């Protein structure tokens, strides 16, 4: 993946203990049930609470209905409203514009990454993701 940000590398034996983290709510938006489940497992083990949505439109509805959500993990390719459209809609203004959004996708095209970055995304993770790196990224962004 081309540069333009901080690349987090994988080192499982130096894994940070993932327990004892203050509970925060993360919205996971992905049309794949397996991805939602696996993101949920990784983040729940790290002490986060998970809310799920299956596409961008449902994701926006979830955000509007839950002020406790502190971050969004967002797939790109989804029916009804894709992830980039949801990102642009959220960042266009409103009460959720401040939320950190990380894209989680099997896409790695530079043009898409640039579009997400320009829209206000905080990160781009290429599937299949490594749970430890995902958790590290979420913790880092929520701590910032």
């Amino acid at each position, binding site marked *: 993946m081309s540069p333009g940000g901080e690349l987090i590398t994988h080192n499982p034996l130096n894994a940070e203990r993932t327990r004892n983290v203050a509970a925060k709510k993360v919205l996971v938006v992905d049309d794949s049930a397996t991805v939602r489940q696996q993101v949920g497992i990784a983040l729940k083990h790290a002490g986060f609470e998970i809310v799920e949505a299956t596409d961008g439109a449902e994701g926006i509805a979830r955000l509007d209905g839950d002020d406790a959500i502190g971050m969004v993990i967002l797939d790109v390719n989804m029916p009804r409203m894709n992830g980039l459209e949801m990102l642009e809609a959220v960042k266009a203004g409103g009460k959720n514009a401040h939320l950190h959004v990380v894209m989680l996708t099997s896409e790695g095209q530079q043009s898409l990454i640039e579009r997400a970055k320009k829209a206000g*995304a905080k990160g781009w993770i290429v599937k299949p993701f*490594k749970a430890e*790196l995902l958790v590290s990224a979420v913790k880092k962004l929520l701590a910032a």
Partner: protein
Amino acid sequence: MTSWEHDGSGGPQGLATRQAATLKSLRATTMGRVREATAVMSREVMAAASSVARAVDGIYQHMGDVRSMLASVEGTDGNGGVAAALERHGTVLSHFSRSIANEASRQEAVASRAKEQIALIARAASDTANLTSAARLLALNARVEASRTHPSGAAFGVIAREMQQLAEQISRTNSIIDDVSRRLREDLPVVAESAQTLKKSAEGLREDLGASATEAEAQIHQLRALVRDAVARGDEDIGKILAASQDAMSHLQFQDVVEQSLLRLDRHFYVAQVEHAEETGLGDEIGLVDPPVHDEIGGDKAVDQENAGDVLLF
């Protein structure tokens, strides 16, 4: 009239329509079969992921229990632990033996002072014995004077009786003092000896406790080191298990790649149907073609495997 006009085939237009219908049927059948297979795979993948997650939860729970147990042994749980209990026990015994030794020393000193006092009493008794002799002699002299100076010697007679009674009283008192002194002289060395023995025992106990405490301290130190080592090794093992489970989870994400490929396959069918409709002039028949579930934003590009797992923070 061409042959197709009366053979019922409908000619090129009919052929194109049948081809379009075949394409549609092929798409529906293929995608249906693939979706069924994908759905089964999805359920299995989620079941496998749940099993891995349960195993990890179980390991976390177990390790939490082990850590609590070890913390209670080590005393880092705020309850003091076994090591602290041993230390407290040693301290109590040490204080107890010290107080016994101190008390024995005090008794020994009291016995020693009592011995000195008895010696003084013995000397006083000896003096009073002399006084008794003097009183008896005075009584004898008074009786002699009384008999010699009769009748005025009656007064000497009174003095003689008084002196005799005094001498007898002093003698009885002296006898009692002698008796008490003798008994004390016999008993006090026993008391002093007992106090000395008790003191030696207490000091011996303190020495033993000191040696025992040193040994216990070494054992406690070793125990704590073992506990810390066990916790560290447990954490390392948990780290490895967690990494392995995360790796397994990562591999299970092939399901998402399969689902992405399914969407691409559906799009290929869709494009083929549209192209066929356009090439055969079935533009009006485009209604036969269902659009794909959703357009892939990345287009027809293959799934990015080279950068899989990368995390880029902006």
